[in-house]
């Protein structure tokens, strides 16, 4: 009897977070025009990358590492789909903290950072569901090859999801800086550019010089884009498991950091009175 009660209690606790995720997911559907705009952009960037890499591969017959032109484009398609589905919460968190609206959320019976994670995931998942098929279709259209295996795809979905969780946590972590600094935008831009470069958005880390590879290895950014994408086009069980471990550790670390930051911030708030 008691055991059942605990389960139900915990289920109810989780339910409110799942509810947030559901609402966020559903409300994302009202921005149809924005979706079209970003799909157009997705198509363009994939086209540009394809054109660029095609020229490079044709003059560089030996190929790059273990990549073919086709794999390269599927790689970019995989990273872009995730990048475009990234968390957009920073602006909202920033403005909610500055306006004081955050007080509304602090009095509610949930853990605010966790609430934000699920909120972010709701719209990210919706985003990915739309962008992923388009990205892969475009890649197929240009390369005329399916660089996708069942294992690859499944691992991509799992690692991609975890990558989005990590991205959400980092974004929230940055957003909470609004408690301490004037404007969080520059910090977010740095994160964004990290993803762009050592996160492997347009170029897989494998192809970069040794120093960059080392730096990228020890930072969490690659788990958001690079690892899921590589797992997709070049699946290997070892790599998949290593990535799982890596991203999970990163998530736990970020969760810890964000919670710490949040408790420091809310203590500050109650001292200053908002």
């Amino acid at each position, binding site marked *: 009897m008691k055991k059942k009660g605990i389960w139900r209690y915990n289920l109810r606790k989780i339910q409110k977070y799942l509810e947030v995720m559901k609402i966020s997911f559903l409300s994302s559907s009202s921005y149809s025009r924005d979706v079209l705009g970003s799909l157009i952009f997705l198509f363009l960037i994939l086209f540009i990358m394809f054109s660029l890499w095609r020229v*490079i591969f044709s*003059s560089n017959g030996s190929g790059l590492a273990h990549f073919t032109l086709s794999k390269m484009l599927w790689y970019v398609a995989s990273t872009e789909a995730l990048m475009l589905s990234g968390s957009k919460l920073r602006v909202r968190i920033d403005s909610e903290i500055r306006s004081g609206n955050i007080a509304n959320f602090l009095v509610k019976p949930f853990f605010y950072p966790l609430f934000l994670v699920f909120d972010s995931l709701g719209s990210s998942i919706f985003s990915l569901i739309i962008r992923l098929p388009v990205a892969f279709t475009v890649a197929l259209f240009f390369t005329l090859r399916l660089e996708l295996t069942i294992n690859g795809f499944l691992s991509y979905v799992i690692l991609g999801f975890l990558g989005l969780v990590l991205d959400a946590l980092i974004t929230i972590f940055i957003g909470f800086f609004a408690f301490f600094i004037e404007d969080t935008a520059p910090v977010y*831009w740095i994160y964004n550019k990290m993803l762009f470069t050592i996160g492997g958005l347009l170029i897989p880390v494998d192809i970069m010089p040794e120093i960059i590879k080392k730096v990228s290895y020890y930072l969490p950014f690659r788990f958001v884009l690079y690892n899921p994408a590589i797992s997709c086009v070049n699946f290997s069980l070892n790599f998949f498991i290593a990535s799982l471990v890596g991203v999970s550790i990163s998530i736990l670390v970020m969760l810890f950091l964000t919670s710490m930051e949040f408790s420091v911030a809310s203590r500050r708030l109650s001292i200053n009175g908002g």
Partner: protein
Amino acid sequence: MEVRRKLHWNRVFFLEYLKINFLTAMEYKASFFMQVFGMLLNDAALLFFWWAIFRRADVIKGWNMQDVFTLYALVTVSFGLATGIFGNVFMIPSMIVKGELDFYLTLPKSPLLHLLISRMSFSAWGDMLFGFLIYIFLVGTSLQGFLLFFFMTVLSALILVSFLIALSSITFYLESGENVFGDVANALITFSLYPSSIFPSGIKIILYTLIPAALIGYVPVSIVKNFSLKELLVLIIALVILAVAGVMLFNRGLKRYSSGSVFGPKI
């Protein structure tokens, strides 16, 4: 006499806006520096991208890394010039839809010119400086070369502004004009940073016409690499066509301007 008077007042008008926009930028120094920082970040990230690419390829369709950096610098300066002087050039459709043209239409100046210079992005000047620095230090050039480079950036900026004015005018005719403008402008910015030579010929045609990224980036850089009178003429003719079309389309479109009332609750 009348011409001299008109010239005098137009010069005064322009200088006054230079002052006003400068004062506005100084009111928000933090925002100014932040924007410059953001642009520097962007520029650095893309330079990194090209550097990584060129470690794997010596030449891309006849262009080496210096050439791509030149493209990068030129486009950066060009966009900087455009928004540094005609700060509202990317905002025209939004202004049309929100009825913000009303202000300009009740005043005795050309609404197009007026709306363009009533905002000047001073952070764009920082971006411009960065572009010049890239060209001088990463590419390297002589005084002559630099002057040619500068002249090309001005030409590129003028083509960009003319094209955007013409493109903005669809907002007068199409309800989704604002979105179309956004998509095309984004495509223009994106494509202009890559050498047009890498694209198949069908796309290249588009890049010389509907989305003139080649006219803004590739061709000017090509002239800087190897001066060609023919290419220069192409650019000048394109500029004239776009400028005339732009002004004409905009003024025609004004007749259909509905000052935002249709989409708002009050008429």
